[in-house]
């Protein structure tokens, strides 16, 4: 039929144009990078096959870590207010209650061994450079001791799930730097302090699920340097599951009507489809008189 032919020509012209300005242009402007690596296989300083000893880990953590970090779930409260902690370290050290749950085991062990290389921040903190990273390297610990610390952190992590887990993971992993005003969540480190410490202001993440979208976030959080070379945002070392929880939290905050949109969408389309059919039957009736 002639009208279908016309429709096909229009669809082809529109389709070619659409392909050029959307998928193709996107592909040119945002070239694919290496896929996310949740094994953090670039780091091999610590033998993570060793089984950790929780009791020994507890001793090591209490001796080394709680001077800076709180671990509220284990009864170690924060020893100074956020503003003072930020003044002392540049950034408020995160609470470690969920550390054993959210960080990948291999990442965590290697982070304790050497934070700067684990976070991919060697360009900011070169060996022997003027600036020192606020958290010391524990490369003097044996691999066994580090795995003891990891085992202890895993043992204190509370089991959470659902939306609570989404928020808890976000707070622990991102909350010291980023605010999310649409979730009424403010960065624990004061604004000026974090800017001075990072050299860049961590953006408010309220709408980043929309502006960056899931695919980008999936790669970026796993390794910021791959997508934004030279950025001061550190690699944070989340497991794939924890990262999905963070992204889910960003979506609940930035795109809270998604479920409503998708279910209503089907109904509206069905409704207009029925309208189109009725209109077609009516048109057939009317035109049968004039043809």
């Amino acid at each position, binding site marked *: 039929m002639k009208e279908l032919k016309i429709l096909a020509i229009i669809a082809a012209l*529109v389709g070619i144009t659409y392909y050029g300005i959307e998928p193709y242009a996107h592909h040119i402007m945002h070239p694919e990078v290496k896929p996310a690596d949740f094994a953090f296989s670039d780091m091999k300083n610590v033998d993570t096959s060793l089984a950790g000893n929780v009791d020994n880990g507890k001793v090591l953590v209490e001796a080394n870590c709680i001077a800076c970090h709180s671990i509220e779930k284990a009864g170690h409260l924060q020893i100074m207010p956020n503003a003072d902690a930020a003044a002392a370290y540049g950034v408020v050290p995160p609470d470690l209650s969920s550390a054993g749950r959210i960080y990948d085991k291999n990442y965590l062990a290697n982070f304790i061994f050497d934070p700067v290389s684990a976070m991919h921040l060697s360009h900011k903190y070169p060996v022997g450079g003027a600036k020192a990273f606020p958290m010391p390297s524990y490369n003097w610990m044996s691999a066994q001791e580090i795995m003891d610390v990891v085992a202890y952190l895993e043992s204190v992590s509370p089991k959470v799930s659902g939306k609570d887990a989404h928020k808890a993971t976000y707070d622990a992993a991102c909350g010291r730097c980023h605010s999310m005003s649409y979730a009424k969540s403010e960065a624990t480190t004061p604004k000026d302090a974090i800017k001075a410490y990072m050299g860049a202001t961590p953006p408010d993440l309220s709408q980043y699920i929309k502006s960056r979208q899931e695919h980008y976030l999936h790669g970026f959080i796993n390794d910021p340097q791959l997508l934004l070379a030279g950025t001061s945002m550190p690699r944070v070392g989340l497991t794939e599951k924890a990262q999905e929880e963070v992204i889910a939290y960003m979506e609940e905050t930035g795109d809270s009507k998604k479920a409503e949109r998708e279910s209503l969408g089907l109904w509206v389309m069905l409704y207009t489809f029925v309208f189109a059919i009725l209109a077609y039957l009516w048109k057939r009736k009317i*035109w049968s008189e004039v043809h």
Partner: protein
Amino acid sequence: MAEFKQADSLYEWFDQRLGIDKFLKVMMTEYWIPKNINFLWAMGVLLSVMFGILVISGIFLLMYYKPDVNMAFDSVNYTIMQEVGYGWLFRHIHAVGASVVFLIIYIHMFTGIYYGSYKKGREMIWISGMLLFVLFSAEGFSGYMLPWGQMSYWAAYVITEIFGGVPLIGGDLVVWIRGNFYVSDSTLTRFFMLHVLLVPLAIIGAIVLHFYALRFPHVNNEAGEFFDFDKEAEKYLAGDKKNSKVVPFWPVFLSKDFFVLGVFLVFFFYLVFFHYDFAMDPVNFDKADGLKTPAHIYPEWYFLWSYEVLRGFFFEIAGISGKSLGLIAFAVAQGVFFVLPWLDRSPMVKPANQRPYFKYWFWFLMVDLIVLTVYGKLPPTGTNAWIGFASSMTFLILFIALPFITRAEAKKVGGK
């Protein structure tokens, strides 16, 4: 004054005073449209409906939007999108509708070009249509600024900057348009005024003019045939509906349009709910920041072809800077469609494919516009810049060549 009888019904009461019967006949049941048309002739009605949808969804947005640089972004992305019941629905409908309306405008325009519906008495339809195109462009551009995202800001910056190229008064002109030396709160508030008041008013006026311009020359048909509408109408009214070449606007013409509208709306709502990124650019969900230039700045898709004509001239020719050349080409591109009826020197009113030379011109233009649109989005580096230059030149040459091509065609077909 006429004498008024006691009315027997409410309808009659109104009819006596407003002449409803007569009015409906003139506007609907005895407004004649050729029978020999396809679904492309439904685009005008689709556009009218889309304009209605945009006005209604816009009114809902207007109830919560705040035209202030400190509040605009959150009033849209938080208040409207997340707090107000179904606020997101109105925003999606409005934003996707504004984009899709241009798709339909382009189909409508190129239908007019394809079937030669812009000449031999139809010049005013065409000119009022082009006026609508310009007004819709202004409406789209001013509206895109309102959410005050990164692309709002930077597209506004780049586009207002263009006026700086106007000789002598350029610099002052830019400041006058922006209300400041840079894109700022005063720019946002005045574009808000344009978007919700002045431009929509002008659009309504132009739609009235467009519809009025259709009445005397009548709508064209698939064969480009000229016939006596009065005679065909008489035939129809006498009951010979099958042999008459015309149908009334209501219900016959509109019954077909409603069906086309239904199919279109299924597609439209699919985009509204499930596929809206093309109209609501992700970059625009970053708040405007005058200190942070985005890696890629591009206007909305429907401006890309003319944006590429502007960018295409990136080097000096004969002592004139690339920037000035681009600006001249851009000015030509904005105006040239207006004079199309006079550039086409062939008297033929026929579908392009039945015109011996024009058909090549038409399809060449389509291809060139698609190339311009795609390369208007891609970064203008390396070969992209040269393809942009070549397609901008092609665009200009096509219009320079049109009078010659169509004159040759006129000769060949012997004035038919």
